[in-house]
C-alpha cells in the first residue's frame, strides 16, 4: 500500500512524514515522534488515556488515523505548559489537589480538562463531571480530579483579574 505524505503541526512545530494510511495517530505520536505522554489504555475509545487536542477538539487518538489528521494542529500533554515554560495551572492544581494517583490517566485527563476550560472557563461541578465523562481513572480518583479542575478554573480567573 502506498505511503501517504502528511504535514501537520504538533505542539506548535511543523511535522512532515511518510506514513501508512492505517497508522493510528497514537502510534504516530508515540513511536514516530517520541511523544509518549498520550497513553494507550483500552485501545477501544473508552478510557481517554490517549486524548489529544486536534484543531480545538478533544479526540481519542487511538481511534483516528494519522491520515485523517493531515493538515491539522495537534496539541499533546507535552505542549501544555505555563507561560514561563513550567507547569500549566492545571498541572499545578492536579499536583496540589492530589488529582493523580498512579498517573496513567493523567495526560489524557489534563489534555481533556484543558479544552474543557478553554470552552467553559467557569464550569460547575456537574459540568466538569459531564465534560470529563470520556476519561476513566482506574484508581477511581475522580473526586480530586474534579477538585483540581475547579481549582484551576479559579486560579486562572484570579490570574486574569490580577492582570487587569
Amino acid at each position: 500500500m502506498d505511503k501517504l505524505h502528511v504535514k501537520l503541526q504538533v505542539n506548535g512545530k511543523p511535522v512532515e512524514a511518510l506514513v501508512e494510511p492505517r497508522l493510528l495517530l497514537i502510534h504516530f505520536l508515540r513511536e514516530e515522534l517520541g511523544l509518549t505522554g498520550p497513553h494507550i489504555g483500552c485501545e477501544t475509545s473508552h478510557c481517554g488515556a490517549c486524548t489529544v487536542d486536534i484543531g480545538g477538539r478533544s479526540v481519542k487518538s487511538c481511534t483516528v488515523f494519522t491520515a485523517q489528521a493531515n493538515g491539522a494542529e495537534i496539541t499533546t500533554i507535552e505542549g501544555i505548559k505555563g507561560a514561563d515554560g513550567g507547569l500549566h495551572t492545571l498541572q499545578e492544581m492536579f499536583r496540589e489537589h492530589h488529582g493523580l494517583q498512579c498517573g496513567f490517566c493523567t495526560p489524557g485527563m489534563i489534555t481533556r480538562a484543558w479544552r474543557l476550560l478553554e470552552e467553559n472557563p467557569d464550569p460547575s461541578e456537574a459540568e466538569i463531571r459531564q465534560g470529563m465523562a470520556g476519561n476513566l481513572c482506574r484508581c477511581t480518583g475522580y473526586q480530586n480530579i474534579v477538585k483540581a479542575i475547579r481549582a484551576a478554573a479559579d486560579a486562572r480567573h484570579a490570574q486574569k483579574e490580577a492582570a487587569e
Partner: protein
Amino acid sequence: MIPGNFAYHRPADVAAAARLLQEYGDEAQILAGGHSLIPMMKLRMAQPSHLIDLQDIAGLKGIGRDGDRLVIGAMTTQHELIGDPLVAEAVPLLRAAAVQIADPQVRYVGTIGGNVANGDPGNDMPGVMQCLDASFELTGPGGTREVRARAFYEAAFTTARAEDEILTRVIVPVPKAGSGYAYLKQKRKIGDYATAAAAVLLGVENGSCASAAIAMTNLAATPVFAEAAGAALVGTTLDDAAMDAAIAAMLAAIDPATDNRGPIEFKRHVARQMLRRAIAEAAGRAGRGTA
C-alpha cells in the same frame, strides 16, 4: 490492535466521493467520524481496501432551516448539533438525544450521518429520526433521493442505502410549537449503547393528546417505530390506562435478544420503564410554547 491496510482518499466534493464509491464498489467504505468503523477495523471485523474520508466536503457540514424542515449536513458532529441554537429551539429532541451519545471526545468527531447510516441497532439517532419522521437524502450516480427513516432500516447494518450512494443530508420536520418530547436511555456506563431507550414526541391540545410518535432503540435488529403505541395515546389525557396501553403495544413490537446487557425479560422491563418515563417527561413538556 492494528487495522488492515487500505488506500486513503479525501475527496473535495460529493461528486468525487461518489465516483470513488462507484469505482471501488464493495471494497470501499465511507469514513465520517470513524468511531464505529475504526474500532471494527482494529478488530479486523471490517477490512475495506479503500477508505473515502468525507471531512473536506464543505457541503456536508452545517445546519439550516428550510421552512418547516431542519436540514442537517451528514458530517455535522454530535458536538456541533448539541451547541446549535437552531436545533435547541426547533427540534430539542435531537439535542436531548445527542447529549446521551457516547462521551465528549466521541461526540466531537461522531457525525449525525454516520450515526444514522451505519445501521447499528445500538445507535441512538435512528430511533429518534423515526420518532421525528425524518428523511435521509441519499446521493448516488443517478442523483439524489429521499428515504424516510421509518422505511430505511432493513436489518442490523442493512439499510435502504445502495452501495454506491452516500447519505448526504438529514431532513427533520420541525414539530409543532408546544410539542412535548423526551429521549430516555438506560445504559450500563458512559459510552455504552442503550440497554433500552425510548424516543417520544407528543402533541397536546386542550389537555388531550392530539398526536404521538414513539420509537425504541436497541430492542430489535433495527430501531422500532412503535406505531400502535403512539396510536394508543392519541385522544387520551395521557392517563395511566393510556400509558399501559401504549406500553403493551410497544412490548408487542420489540424483539430484544439476550446479550451482555442482560436477558430478554430484563430488557423488556427496562423498555417498559424507559417508555413510561419518556411519556411522562414529554407530557410534562407539552404545551409550553416551544417545540
